[in-house]
């Protein structure tokens, strides 16, 4: 239950900007603040403080594009517990465009998108779910008569940060599985001039999505990423190394058939196809649905859904992973991720923006993200 006495928005920036957009000049705003100080019987020295407090009313704008996908990722974020989806929508961000939840449709929806992108140019967070089909000129996903690729490029151009949520936006996912009939690709295959955070999974865990958004909003930069663009705070370790059934693996206690005696004792699922040894995912730690359980916790082998191309590399799902026993447990996300991706993205921060924010003495969303990514310890984003 929320506390109704609390201001329902973040104290970051820019009621002034909002007023200016609606035709109230900054000097009028300051005049209003001076009058407020008088009315409240305060010394005139308080005026700047009042102005500063009032000017802080603004929730960070978020624009969410749903491209070629199944909406599972949106459903997943609806399951978020901290913050809850209600708190996220009303208190934390301003979700200016999101097809599954927004009230407007048609022209009115398109206008909401356009307005937010214009008013918040360089400052909004772009969330993308879904892949981008490129065959036949991208005709396999059109929205309002325009292709997914067209929508993505336009929205990405003005975004401060891009968060690709889910396996489809990450690398194309099930549509991109052989033979990839529509030529589906992920966001990083198209947007190569700015960093893209890949929240991996089909779908990702709700709390990983919201934690990443909160990270960007609170710290004014994107979290440190592995070579796949996945935030290390979530995807830094393999399921196998965090699994409560690891002791069974080490002890040689394996389920050989579903519902056998070993299954009923909760032993290791490796022999019935578990992909945990190859999969970087926070499932065992974050768990799912209010920490109720997770796939291995419910007796099913991991299918490896946070790994790129898992529909082709991890299938048949119930066959034992080849060569797993040979993989040293200390193998890192960067090395494994590097198999799939040529270039490194790790550690790209929105350096210039963060610097600007710190100079202004307050936390702030990045204004002009680094193009080409030569920020703090980062390398160029992949351009394949």
């Amino acid at each position, binding site marked *: 239950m929320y506390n109704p006495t609390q201001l329902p928005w973040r104290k970051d920036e820019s009621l002034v900007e909002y007023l200016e957009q609606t035709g109230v000049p900054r000097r009028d705003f300051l005049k209003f603040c001076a009058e407020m100080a008088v009315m409240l019987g305060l010394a005139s020295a308080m005026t700047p403080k009042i102005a500063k407090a009032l000017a802080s009313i603004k929730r960070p704008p978020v624009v969410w594009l749903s491209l070629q996908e199944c909406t599972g990722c949106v459903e*997943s974020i609806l399951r978020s517990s901290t913050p809850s989806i209600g708190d996220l929508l009303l208190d934390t961000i301003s979700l200016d465009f999101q097809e599954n939840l927004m009230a407007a449709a048609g022209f009115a929806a398109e206008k909401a998108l356009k307005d937010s992108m214009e008013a918040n140019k360089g400052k909004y967070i772009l969330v993308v779910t879904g892949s981008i089909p490129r065959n036949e000129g991208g005709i396999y996903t059109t929205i309002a008569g325009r292709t997914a690729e067209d929508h993505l490029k336009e929205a990405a151009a003005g975004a401060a940060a891009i968060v690709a949520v889910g396996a489809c936006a990450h690398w194309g996912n099930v549509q991109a599985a052989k033979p990839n009939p529509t030529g589906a690709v992920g966001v990083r295959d198209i947007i190569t001039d700015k960093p893209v955070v890949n929240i991996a999974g089909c779908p990702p865990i709700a709390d990983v999505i919201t934690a990443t958004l909160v990270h960007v909003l609170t710290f004014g930069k994107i979290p440190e990423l592995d070579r796949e663009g996945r935030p290390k705070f979530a995807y830094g370790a393999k399921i196998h190394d965090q699994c409560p059934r690891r002791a069974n693996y080490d002890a040689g206690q394996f389920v050989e058939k579903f519902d056998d005696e070993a299954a009923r004792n909760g032993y290791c699922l490796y022999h019935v196809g578990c992909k945990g040894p190859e999969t970087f995912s926070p499932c065992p730690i974050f768990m799912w649905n209010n920490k109720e359980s997770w796939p291995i916790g419910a007796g099913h082998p991991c299918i490896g859904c946070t790994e790129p191309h898992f529909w082709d590399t991890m299938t048949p799902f119930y066959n034992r992973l080849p060569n797993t026993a040979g993989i040293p447990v200390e193998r890192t996300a960067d090395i494994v991720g590097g198999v799939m991706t040529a270039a490194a993205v790790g550690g790209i921060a929105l350096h210039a923006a963060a610097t600007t924010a710190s100079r202004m003495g307050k936390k702030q969303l990045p204004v002009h993200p680094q193009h080409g990514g030569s920020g703090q310890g980062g390398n160029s984003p992949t351009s394949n």
Partner: protein
Amino acid sequence: MAVTKLVVDPITRIEGHLRIEVQAENGKINNAWASATQFRGLELVLKGRDPRDAWAFAQRICGVCTVVHAVASLRSVENALDIKIPAQAHLIRNLMLGMQYIHDHVVHFYHLHALDWVDVVSALKADAVAAEKIAKGMSDWPNNNAVRFKAVQDRVAGFVQSGQLGIFTNGYWGHPAYKLPPEVNLIAVSHYLEALDWQRDVVALHAVFGGKNPHPNFIVGGMASPINLEARATINADKLTDVNALIKRAQEFVEKVYWPDLVAIAGFYKDWAAIGGGTGNYLCYGDLPKTPNGDDFYFPKGVVMNKDLSKLVPFDQAGVTEQIHSSWYEYSGGNDSALHPWDGETKASYTGPKAPYEYLQDEKKYSFMKSPRYNGKPMEVGPLARMLVGYAAGQKDIKAIVDTTLKALNVGPEALFSTLGRTAARGMESLLYAKLMREWYDDLVTRVKGGDTTTHNGEKWDPSTWPKEAKGFGYLEAPRGALGHWVNIKDGKIENYQAVVPSTWNCSPRDKDGVMGPYEAALVDNHPLADPERPIEILRTIHSFDPCLACGVHVLDATGREITQVKVQ
């Protein structure tokens, strides 16, 4: 008055990419085209795969109906290979399906459909004390009190005053089609927020048995989650206690919040009981078998033709075919043939305009949806079809709830064939599911007590036990309606896979005889469109189907020339 043509794209608050184009004259819609503007090709991806993996691929057809595609796929493979699932797996699947339905219907009602009927901005004018009085007359839900309502109102007021309306930006607030008093709007907004938390919590039932939601895990031959009361990592008393509590919570919300809201809101919109009926043909595959592997269903199978509830036409999957006359596909035997899904083909062949495009409706082909037909006729599928088929079949529980609802709203059975009927049917069956879930849970626990802990039948797990060739049909009643998966297996691999989904039935474009699909037919059935710039009426009817797809709106005359420049305030 001029003929106007209107395009709505994107149609929001649905899953996927749907585009509606309509033609209207004198405030009434007289022609309509429904188009799916997305193709993913999963049927092609499934070819050559291990049939035991198919559920996981097929499940990704939809992340909203996250359980149903998986189960339809399992049933198709189990049907093909003659695999029988154990009683406990059957009950667990039913519990998961039941929670899928209830969850889906509540989310649809509050978060996808309510804003077509509820004016959020009007709620700011409500008197919280008066709202409490009204709400207390609806149910004894503890949060129906003035303190809570006032807190919600303050929160929404603060939100609106921030100038950042977020998801409420550019809604059709203040449209004369909104009829609820401010107090009822406030109650609905309060429940909108409560339902957000509720839906997150109750769906944890899927995690207990399937490890997660969306996209919980399943397995051919039963369920992967073993029952062992003496182990930590299995279905034990701790997990069963969670399930019990989640069912209780789901049931209470349906009975004390969703159903009362539905009846109260419907009471203000009775004119919508004469709008948007459409094809008048209703199909239910039958679902929720009473026994494992049986075909005696809680929701009986059958077809109602031409709104005739006195006669139930039998359903046989052999009567299902798909046409592509108006769809961007090719058939090897000619584009006017109708193929049964076992002989189905998925060869995309886009012939529409190059993007960016303005209009599709002048094209002969205008959608990535095929046109499914039953015995050659278009069929509406979904909650209303289930209630009508159940009613025509004389199913006691369904008849009782339908009659009670009609009485509560003081309308006759003809009111069911409408936009309102479709929305009400969703609430009716949620009540039935809530009751059934309690029965299934009790049955599960009783069986465990009696020593039945088997959840998987692995006799035919090994592909060496399979016939060289086999084909199967996996039917299911998804929240949105009749769902069928057809699989052909050869040499242990999938040779062909076809899914005919509820939205394909409902969103179907015109067939070779020029007959409209249900969305299209509903939009031309006595359908108002007061203000083409704010087409809220189109959203009401299209959302009443709970589409699983996405769309856009432009206004032009019958020759394609724009005659109304749409401006949005």
